[in-house]
Every structure is written in structure tokens, then in C-alpha cells.
């Protein structure tokens, strides 16, 4: 199989971009990624997006984004897997290059949440769940996470504020990421006093829904421009798995099977063991998901994922650095763009360009995005292949 290199990365600041449209956001990220790659021209475009048909009355983003980026004529499609749309788009780009069928692929994740507010957005987000048997009951992704967190705390005797470490770490790292929504560290007291949203979830257990776009240029190693400007970073492992859509249909609701399956496959492809992973970009849309991903991937045993954060083992100098550029919590939850932001951030780390947030000696990064409560998981291992 041919080496799939991340030749170019681009991202917009994450925020409430009321003055920037969906197509403009996507184009901004694309411009940066193409420039970063040294001007490579893509033959295929894979767009990761979850809610533009609902929130922007706009489907058919492949054609729209290609058109608006001056790439009319290339093949272009949207990939949707709820919150894992971006990760799934990265995977499609990976498959296109590694199969040899496409020379240069452009992967773009884009999401606009903030053109609407309130109940309309909540209803749109609920389309990621089982419409006939979850959403119709008034269940929302937030309430799913809340009741999972409650059950987890009940089974494992987790103290109140046991999950504070996730938000604290995320915000500390967000402070060093100029693209993040929140660039300010928070104190433990802030978490302790935070408003309850859906018991036991408080405001700091939930990532904000915000706008953003991120892009990757993927290609084969032999197609890189001669004076390619960056340390080489490649995708060494790529896998995805699905589980029952409805949370209530799970064999074990407190174990993210998809996280384990997809990570295991990706690690096998990359030929690495867990202790070789330098950092983990998890899908911390809710703090409980971060804990459950940590457990399913194997960094902690069942019921102990929360302790890794509480004992400060997930910081930049910790045992397993997580959310190194702020994660979903501080960077922001950018819907279908998430998986592409994770890939951009991982590439930044592996190139040694993460500045204040640099994980020393980063060699392998694990990135993982989830659709729903891990009804889908897409995991990638990204590797630095030369100093």
C-alpha cells in the first residue's frame, strides 16, 4: 500500500461566524491547505458535514464547495456520519490515495451551527439519533450523555466534580491554540460552580456548537513538490466501526465498542502498540465520552477513565496527552468538521509546529471522532516519518 502523506493543512478560527457563509468558510480552509501543500491540485474532494441540510437548507455540498473553490469539474461528494462525518471524510480521502485511483485528494470539514439558535438546533442535532425510537421521545444527544454519565457515576462511585479534569485540561490547551473558540484556562472552582444543563452534566461537560472549517491535502509521497516545506507526516492507520444506532440497543452502554474496534484496526495497520501513541485527540463532545473513549481504547480500565483526567495524567506532559489543542471542549464542537480539525491538529503536533502546546517527541498521534454515543467511530493513526 502506498504512503498517504498529509501534504497540506488549513483551518479557520472556530467561532460564531455570523458574517461568513458556509461556502466562504470552506473556501478559507481550502485556500490555506492548498497553499500549505505547495500548490498541489486535487482531483477529488471529500466534504465532511452533518447538518447543513437542516441548519442552512443546503445539501449537495460536494458540488457547492468544489464550485466555490474554483475546482469545478473534479469529483466531489459529501460524507455524513453525524459527528464522525469529518473523520469519515478523512478516511475516504485516505482510501482514494492509497488505492492509487486518485493522485491528490482534498478533504474539507465544514459546519455552520450559529445561523440558528435554540430548539431548532437541538432538533437538528437529534437527527443523529434513532428518529423513531429516541428523538421522537424527546431524547437529545445532551440528554443521552447526561444519563450515561449518571449511570457511570452510579456504577463506579465517581465523586461530584469527578469529571472536572477534562474541561480543565481542554481549556488549558485551548489557551495555546489561536484557532480555538476558548483560549482561556479555567479553575476547578469554575467547574464546581457551573450551571447544571441536564443532570449531572454541567455547562463545562459540554462542548459548544460553533462554526468552523478545516482542510487537508492528501497525496502520495512521490507526488510532493521538490522543495516541500514541512516534516513528512502520513496516515499510517485508518479504520471505522459502527454499533447499534440507538443507545438503548447496546449490549453495554458504558463501553464504546466502536472506539475499541476502529482503534485496534488502525494500530494494527500502523504496526504499533498502545504505549507508542504520543497523544490522543478524542471526541470530547461531552466529558463522559472522553472517559469512555479512554477506557475503550485501553488507556484506562473500565470505570477508571475519569481518574486519568482527575489525576492530571492527560496534560501535555502527562502519561497520555489528550485534547492537545483544546479538544472539542475548548476548540469547539464543529460538527462534521471535527475529524478534519483533529487531523490538522495532529499534523501540527507531528510537524513540531504546535508552539506552546507541543508534545515533546511526538511520533504517533491517535485521532478519533464519534457519531452519536459511539454509534460510529472513525480512528486514524498519524505518524511523523522523518525528523
Amino acid at each position: 500500500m502506498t504512503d498517504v502523506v498529509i501534504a497540506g493543512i488549513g483551518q479557520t478560527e472556530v467561532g460564531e461566524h455570523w458574517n461568513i457563509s458556509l461556502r466562504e468558510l470552506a473556501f478559507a480552509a481550502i485556500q490555506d491547505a492548498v497553499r500549505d501543500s505547495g500548490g498541489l491540485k486535487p482531483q477529488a474532494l471529500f466534504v465532511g458535514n452533518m447538518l447543513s441540510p437542516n441548519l442552512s437548507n443546503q445539501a449537495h455540498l460536494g458540488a457547492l464547495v468544489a464550485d466555490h473553490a474554483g475546482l469545478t469539474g473534479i469529483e466531489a461528494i459529501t460524507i455524513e456520519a453525524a459527528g464522525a462525518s469529518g473523520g469519515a471524510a478523512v478516511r475516504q480521502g485516505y482510501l482514494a490515495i492509497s488505492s492509487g485511483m486518485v493522485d491528490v485528494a482534498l478533504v474539507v470539514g465544514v459546519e455552520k451551527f450559529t445561523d440558528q439558535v435554540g430548539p431548532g438546533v437541538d432538533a437538528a442535532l437529534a437527527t443523529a439519533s434513532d428518529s423513531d425510537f429516541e428523538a421522537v421521545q424527546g431524547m437529545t444527544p445532551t440528554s443521552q450523555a447526561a444519563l450515561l454519565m449518571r449511570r457511570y457515576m452510579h456504577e463506579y462511585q465517581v465523586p461530584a466534580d469527578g469529571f472536572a479534569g477534562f474541561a480543565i485540561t481542554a481549556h488549558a490547551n485551548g489557551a495555546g491554540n489561536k484557532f480555538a473558540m476558548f483560549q482561556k484556562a479555567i479553575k476547578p472552582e469554575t467547574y464546581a460552580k457551573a450551571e447544571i444543563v441536564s443532570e449531572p452534566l454541567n455547562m463545562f461537560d459540554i462542548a459548544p456548537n460553533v462554526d468552523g472549517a478545516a482542510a487537508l491535502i492528501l497525496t502520495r509521497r512521490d507526488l510532493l513538490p521538490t522543495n516541500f516545506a514541512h516534516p513528512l507526516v502520513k496516515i499510517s492507520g485508518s479504520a471505522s466501526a459502527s454499533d447499534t444506532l440507538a443507545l438503548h440497543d447496546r449490549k453495554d452502554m458504558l463501553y464504546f465498542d466502536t472506539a475499541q474496534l476502529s482503534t485496534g484496526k488502525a494500530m494494527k495497520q500502523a504496526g504499533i502498540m498502545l504505549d507508542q501513541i504520543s497523544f490522543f485527540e478524542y471526541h470530547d463532545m461531552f466529558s463522559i465520552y472522553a472517559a469512555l473513549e479512554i477506557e475503550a481504547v485501553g488507556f484506562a480500565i473500565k470505570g477508571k477513565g475519569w481518574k486519568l483526567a482527575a489525576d492530571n495524567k492527560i496534560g501535555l506532559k502527562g502519561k497520555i496527552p489528550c485534547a492537545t489543542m483544546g479538544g472539542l471542549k475548548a476548540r469547539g464542537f464543529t460538527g462534521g468538521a471535527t475529524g478534519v480539525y483533529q487531523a490538522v491538529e495532529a499534523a501540527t503536533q507531528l510537524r513540531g509546529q504546535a508552539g506552546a502546546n507541543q508534545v515533546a517527541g511526538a511520533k504517533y498521534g491517535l485521532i478519533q471522532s464519534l457519531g452519536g454515543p459511539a454509534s460510529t467511530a472513525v480512528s486514524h493513526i498519524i505518524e511523523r516519518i522523518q525528523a
Partner: protein
Amino acid sequence: MEIPRHWRLKQQRYSLVGEVCPHCDYKIFPPRDVCPNCGDEAKELYTFSGKGEVYSYTTIYEAPSGYDANAPYTVAIVKLQEGPMITAQLTDLGDQPVEIGMPVEMVTRRMRNDGDERGIIVYGYKFRPRLAVA
């Protein structure tokens, strides 16, 4: 409004009709024709008793559109006596605090409306506290 969609589901919504697998006796809700336990074909209808207990729950204050009239409401995952888990609102709670493990029973209630007087009103199952019977 999606009238046919809601009409198709009325046996599930009003009567908790699922399936039982003729091969391994696994009880299935909602019906899915393939047994999630043994993988064989399962199309025999089965009506659940409506009895169960609370696996977990939370209260929603900021509801999605169509449910705002109801807010705040409590949504739960209920473990039915026969095995399957189901997502549903809890109702008729009064002042009673909800607890994991609390016994509940199915009732039929209004679940949502379409927000205008001429829109469809969707009825379905909710669960209320059940006095534990010896």
C-alpha cells in the same frame, strides 16, 4: 408531519408490540426482523407487559422544537422486564424523586405536537412509577 411514518409505528407506540425470536426466545423491541442475539430471522410478534425499571434518567430543561411545551421533562432508558431497553419520558412523577432501579409501568401519553393547531399530535408510550408488587 410525516403522517405515514407515525401511523406505521402505532402498534409499537400504543401497545409495545415487538418480536420474539423463535430460535432463541430473545424478546426484541422494536421489531427488526433479525434477532440481535442469534442473528436468525425473527418475525413473530410479541406484546410486552409494559413493566420495567429505570436504568438511567435525566431532566431536560432546554427542549428541542416540538417538545418545548413539555419542558422541563424527564427522559429515561427503561429496562423492560422481558429484557430489551427502551428510551421514553417518565411521567406522573409528582414530587417523587427518580432513582436508578425504580420500578415503572407503561402508559399512553401525548409525546409531542407539531407546533400549530392543525398539526399532527403524536401519542406514544411513557412510563410512570409503579408500586412494587410482592
